[in-house]
């Protein structure tokens, strides 16, 4: 597992928390663009987690109030795609 202070490599996977209404399995495009739009508190970019720094991507759900965790999906994206 990588240290969070280590440089991000182009092939890394980053994880974005997706609220349930931005995700529709089965659609031609299953995630809304809105899921990747910066939130008001994301003034210098969108928040993602580095999968390489986690034992399991699902671990990031622990930042969410426990009763809300089932309202989220996780989008795993290549860092290279995010940084274009």
């Amino acid at each position, binding site marked *: 597992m990588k240290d969070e202070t280590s440089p991000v490599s182009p092939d890394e996977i980053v994880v974005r928390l997706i*609220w349930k209404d931005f995700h529709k399995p089965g659609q031609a*495009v299953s995630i809304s663009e*809105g899921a990747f739009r910066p939130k008001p508190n994301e003034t210098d970019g969108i928040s993602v987690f580095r999968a390489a720094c986690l034992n399991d991507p699902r671990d990031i759900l622990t930042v969410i109030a426990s009763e809300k965790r089932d309202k989220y999906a996780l989008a795993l994206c290549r860092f290279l795609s995010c940084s274009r």
Partner: protein
Amino acid sequence: MWDSLKPEILARLPRSTMNGTTNGSHAPSVLASPPTNWESCLEKLQEYRSYTDDWDGQGAAFGKPAAPITGEMIDSATALATSLRRVGVSAPDWTFPGVDGTVGFEWRLGSGDSISLEFRDPTMADVFFCAADNDVEHLILTEAVTV
């Protein structure tokens, strides 16, 4: 409310026939997926009435709780959805809440383009026409106010 919609915006929204299927021959835009229905959009909006402070559960971790979605916001979005439906616009592919207490609609078009309508407040919405090549055009939809 929202009885008068800007023609330059309305003309660019995807259209549906009465039975809910996309009318490609006359539509200014064609959806990427089979259209959803307005009932599910309206149901979502009603669900958001229960979205109170910190509805997304991220407040404790990130310090700024999601703002509640007010009844006024939902009433306005419902009125706009009803107006769009009445004039034959396809239901949005996505109806979503905003952490700043707003709501939005998004249409994904077959061309790869998308249209996003995001309320700024109950009387104003930003409309983004996003081309597949990342070009974005921004228009503002405002509710006419009678004085």
